[in-house]
């Protein structure tokens, strides 16, 4: 039996309230607040900046430390080649969560390594028989896997962080 007594319209903001027996969570007080899109966009452009804009500077700095730490460790281990929009498209969807730094790394990979400006281009036969040229700085094997995983993890965590920043300032923050 459908409950036809509850109607939602697009003009009314939808808030989901917990029942009286539900335990209060850390975000209960934020349910009725509007979304802070500027904080979300800032959080994508520079991880942690969304929280800093919301007045939570220490939290923002810690998020920045975590996201940039993961991303830079990944690039340090796997090299520029671990961020590749064309060859690893699905991984790049996750990596793009870190913001412009992922696109910059991909551009540097294309501009420096794939063009042969750094390292040397080596001939390689593709599985379909085509002749390719790959950079001598291309990362392969577990090193590439770890670098890709670190950078993708940073991107996914930054999506969580910017969704948190979208909710606006916390009432109790240190």
């Amino acid at each position, binding site marked *: 039996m459908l409950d036809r007594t509850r109607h939602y319209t697009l003009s009314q903001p939808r808030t989901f309230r917990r029942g009286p027996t539900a335990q209060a969570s850390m975000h209960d007080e934020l349910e009725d607040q509007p979304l802070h899109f500027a904080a979300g966009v800032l959080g994508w452009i520079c991880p942690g900046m969304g929280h800093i804009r919301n007045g939570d500077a220490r939290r923002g700095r810690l998020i920045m430390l975590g996201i940039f730490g993961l991303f830079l460790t990944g690039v340090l281990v796997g*090299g*520029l080649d671990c961020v590749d929009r064309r060859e690893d498209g699905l991984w790049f969807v996750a990596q793009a969560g870190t913001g412009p730094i992922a696109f910059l790394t991909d551009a540097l990979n294309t501009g420096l390594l794939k063009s042969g400006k750094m390292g040397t281009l080596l001939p390689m036969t593709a599985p379909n028989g085509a002749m390719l040229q790959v950079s001598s*700085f291309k990362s392969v094997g577990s090193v590439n896997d*770890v670098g890709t995983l670190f950078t993708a993890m940073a991107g996914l965590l930054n999506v969580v962080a910017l969704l948190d920043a979208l909710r606006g300032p916390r009432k109790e923050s240190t």
Partner: protein
Amino acid sequence: MSMIAYTPFVQPIADAAHWWWLLVVPMCAGVSVTWKAIRLRALDRYWPEVAIMTGQLLAGMVALAAGLMVLVRVVLPMLPAD
């Protein structure tokens, strides 16, 4: 010789292929640093919480690896071939 020409953040660390599994420690630490910064309501016990979560993640991965090793080396060989 190759390490002399090594360019950080451009070339991969060639030697890391031998100890890549150790990188699970900084990965767990990085995830914990970010996750606890997002989730904790108050940050006064931030670093102890990060240390606890890092330990939990590492323990979970070690347990998972041990379980998979038992499955592959003990359980699967006991199954009939046909």
